[in-house]
């Protein structure tokens, strides 16, 4: 039995799935129980346990094998800055002034330097660390992150600083080394990511201890996983080193939910997914069945990081968005005053428009009790406002002829236009990605989705209309109310590895695995051998027997004088996000 729980901003969703007894293949899971509880913002643990207890009670489960949590714990801590102060130790060398990078409560800038080849150009001075440490102690800073420029090409200086700190008298709550966060170059992002990692360590440790205790009390011994921002899971124990990877897992849960419930990965179709909520609509993208990643790394609290995340954009329009007339024009969102007028809310919303226009008539699963009269009254006030305003650009054909019904159509038209335009812009932006080789520049990228996968309350009505405008096929996701929890439940562990071999310098670096060593004389590492190593290391670090794939290959000669003295090869490999098992198709109706 597997439980997936997704803690969202307003609701915490849970799902319990189990294999059918008769058949124990991995593709034979069935949803046994679902739950939805209110999220208590100041006690996420409570929300999780309530959801868990509900699921256990409904299903009479005695034991669960796997529990996957997607929480907003670390995200909230970062957004609300609810953490103990973080001190930064930077090793920037020459470049952009470090004045722009001093995010720490205290910032120690050391004078060492490693260059782009990973060669140490300037040593770090122990005396500088010693002096700096004093100011950390004076401010009782217990969270420290050490970040060097090009440290992924040579982590020795970061490691030396860490060793010094570990040997110091005072104990630190968290120590983060920048090079372990990602194999990608970007010093400012490495600093921000390391800062956040140190910031959320303590709260993450406390959460981890509390959940273990709560499970013990219930005599449950599942394998415990957390969902990461890249749509993969990580064992709770492993997440203690890099808790920052668990931020922003909500959108990932949603996209993995879509994947699991639609089997889009097996169908290998290019599709746009839409999660239409009360105030926001989240857009995701699958290219030939695979979810797309953010090009560089996600942005949290307006700061760019190195955290790998699934591509997802959020637009501030949903079923409960407030509709107003401002300067004679309709404005949808971004605010929400309450539920739809039809459901007793204070103001007209897109849901009211859908109801009045007749799109919700057959949506029986829509569990709210809608009052058509209330919706019409709310819309008629908008009609009046538009008619009194002179410069109504929105009115078709004229303000005088506007009825509640034609206004409803107008609102829906405007709403769907907004979403369609955003989808088109997203595709154009992704197609316009800059490239660095002639072959890539000549091979024009076209992303041509054929499918619109919709979920969320108003999705049933809207997805068809949107798909028509986009000329895609429309498809509704079953179980969409607990899709995020399903996404968490089925997500498999992901992993990325960056193998960098510099045969001219005789160095091997695998930042994510903490490997940094000299090459042996016998190790030649031609391109094929380098690729094999990347696959091997990734397989070793992976927890599942899923296919490992190479995502990026670079190989350049190193010339000195007019002689080739070696090569630099950089190979990236990954276990991509995907489901560990599948729901059985014929049972998927709600």
């Amino acid at each position, binding site marked *: 039995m597997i439980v997936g729980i997704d803690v969202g901003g307003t609701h915490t969703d849970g799902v319990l799935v189990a294999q059918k007894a008769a058949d124990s293949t991995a593709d034979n899971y069935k949803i046994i129980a679902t739950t939805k509880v209110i999220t208590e913002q100041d006690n996420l643990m409570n929300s999780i346990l309530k959801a868990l207890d509900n699921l256990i009670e409904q299903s009479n489960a005695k034991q669960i094998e796997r529990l996957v949590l997607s929480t907003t714990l670390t995200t909230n801590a970062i957004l609300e800055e609810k953490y103990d102060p973080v001190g930064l130790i930077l090793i920037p060398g*020459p*470049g952009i002034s470090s004045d722009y990078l001093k995010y720490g409560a205290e910032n120690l800038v050391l004078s060492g330097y490693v260059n*782009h080849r990973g060669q140490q150009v300037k040593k770090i001075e122990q005396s500088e660390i010693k002096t700096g440490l004093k100011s950390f102690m004076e401010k009782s800073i217990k969270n420290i992150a050490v970040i060097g420029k090009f440290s992924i090409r040579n982590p020795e200086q970061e490691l030396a600083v860490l060793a010094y700190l570990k040997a110091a008298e005072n104990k630190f709550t968290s120590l983060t080394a920048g090079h372990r966060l990602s194999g990608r170059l970007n010093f400012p992002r490495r600093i921000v990511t390391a800062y956040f990692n140190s910031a959320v360590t303590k709260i993450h440790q406390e959460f981890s201890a509390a959940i273990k205790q709560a499970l013990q009390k219930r005599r449950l011994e599942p394998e415990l996983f957390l969902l990461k921002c890249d749509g993969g899971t990580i064992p709770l124990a492993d997440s203690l080193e890099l808790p920052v990877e668990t931020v922003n897992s909500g959108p990932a849960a949603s996209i993995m939910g879509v994947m699991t419930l639609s089997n889009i990965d097996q169908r290998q179709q290019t599709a746009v997914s839409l999660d239409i909520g009360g105030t926001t609509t989240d857009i995701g993208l699958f290219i030939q069945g695979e979810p797309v990643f953010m090009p560089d790394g996600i942005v949290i609290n307006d700061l760019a990081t190195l955290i790998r995340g699934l591509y997802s954009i959020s637009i501030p329009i949903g079923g409960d968005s407030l509709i107003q007339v401002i300067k004679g024009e309709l404005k949808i969102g971004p605010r929400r005053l309450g539920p739809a007028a039809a459901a007793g809310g204070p103001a007209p919303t897109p849901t009211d428009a859908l109801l009045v226009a007749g799109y919700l008539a057959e949506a029986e699963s829509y569990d709210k009790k809608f009052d058509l009269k209330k919706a019409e009254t709310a819309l008629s006030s908008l009609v009046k406002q538009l008619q009194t305003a002179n410069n109504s650009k929105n009115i078709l054909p004229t303000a005088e002829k506007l009825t509640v019904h034609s206004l409803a159509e107008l609102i829906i038209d405007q709403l769907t236009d907004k979403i369609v335009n955003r989808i088109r812009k997203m595709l154009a932006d992704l197609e316009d990605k*800059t490239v660095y080789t*002639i*072959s890539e520049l000549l091979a024009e990228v076209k992303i041509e989705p054929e499918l619109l996968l919709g979920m969320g309350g108003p999705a049933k009505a809207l997805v068809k209309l949107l798909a028509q405008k986009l000329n895609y096929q429309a498809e509704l996701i079953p179980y969409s109310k607990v899709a995020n929890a399903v996404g968490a439940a089925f997500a498999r562990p992901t992993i990325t590895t960056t193998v960098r071999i510099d045969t001219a310098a005789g160095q091997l670096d695998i930042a994510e695995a903490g490997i940094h060593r000299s090459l042996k004389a016998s190790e030649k590492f031609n391109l094929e051998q380098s690729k094999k190593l990347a696959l091997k290391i990734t397989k070793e670090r992976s927890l599942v027997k899923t296919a490992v794939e190479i995502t990026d290959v670079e190989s350049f*000669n190193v*010339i000195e004088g*007019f002689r080739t003295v070696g090569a630099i090869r950089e190979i990236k490999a990954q276990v991509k996000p995907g489901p560990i098992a599948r729901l059985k198709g014929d049972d998927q109706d709600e």
Partner: protein
Amino acid sequence: MNKVPELKAKNKLGLIFFPAFDWEISPTHPERKERLLYTRDQVFEEGLLDINGIAEFNPDIAEPEDIVRANICIPTVADICTKSHLISAGAAMRAAELVLTDQVSKAFAIVRPPGHHAFRLVHGARGFCNINNEAVMVEAIRKHYPEIKIAFVDTDAHHADGTQEIFYHDPNILHISLHQDGRTLFPGSGFLNELGGPGAYAKTLNIPLPPGTTDQGILYAIKQFVLPVLHDFAPDLVINSAGQDNHYSDPLTNMNVSARGYAELNALLDPDLAILQGGYSIQSALPYINVGLILAMAGLDYSSVTEPDYQPDKLIQSKQITEKIKREIDQLQQIWQQRNQIDLEEVYGSLNNGYKREKRIFYDTDQILEEQQEALNYCPDCPGYLFIESQASRGGFRKKKIAALSIPRLICDSCYNEALAKFEELKTTARQKYDSLYLQDLKADQYLIHNF
């Protein structure tokens, strides 16, 4: 979280970074795949692409008709241009377009291969250049702004002989080249007395710098001469041909300029566009110079960008060098100040039969020797058209002999009719003399090849 000052570009900068990682002249040639690899690493690691106000763009791909407005390719564009050249030229065009359409306020094209050694007539690769990217860009700009005044400041260590030659008779293009003295370096030209043709006197200016010149010398030339000249010329567009081989670590040259010197030079010039040219110290110089230039163009602080091995006390310019540069600048200032009083016939001889130049051009990369005669039909009312005869040979084997008429966009009607008549006449009478005739007609935007 401590609030840090926001790193925001003062000038919105468009960056066309196209390292062409899959193109090279040969694996050990300076112009090889990894030339911009370390620059890419440094730019990425410094996080420059995340800076608010710095945006990255892909290059355009130039069309053959874009190329032939600048370069007459012998025998055809397809024989001279690979995709890499079309992209490099397209990158320069995109950079200009971004600025002229106000999408950005400045643009920097970090692209390869370079172009400033490519002459108007092209038989092959010369100084690693086949196509003159910048000239292609200028002609693309002039399609929309025919009377635009453009100033080039070429800061590559090699004399920008190609760009100089293409615009030698063009009064709307000011071409200033600062470079290591031609007596000590390829291509062996770029002296004070190369001042442009009779219709564009002092619109070509050269500042040869002695080997060993440092930041001090090159910045002296910029401040004392280049900036006042730019002020007087009042161009609509300033372009920095941003070669980077004046660097103290460059393997092909003997200069002592630093990354910070290059950044300061760029900040002083305040160009609208910068286009990378040469620079072959790919590990020790390019990463730092390019970071410095990007920051300078964005109007950001570049003062802490230095090479890891930078030791200013080891880069002191000798007194002789300082004095030599000063004497040159004094001379140039005099030339510039007297440019309008000059008696053209005293400089160029009688102009009754136009103005002729004989050129022997060696294509070092392709080992081609070209003998060329260029005759300007001098006209006081317009820039005049060029009649060019050329014969190239390779390894002792003579290639075809060709003649070309090159007509500038702003030609006067009488010169234009004369040029077209001459082309028609040659078609019927010159069968014995040439193998092919070329017409580069910018006024009608046409390009014709007539093979006998």
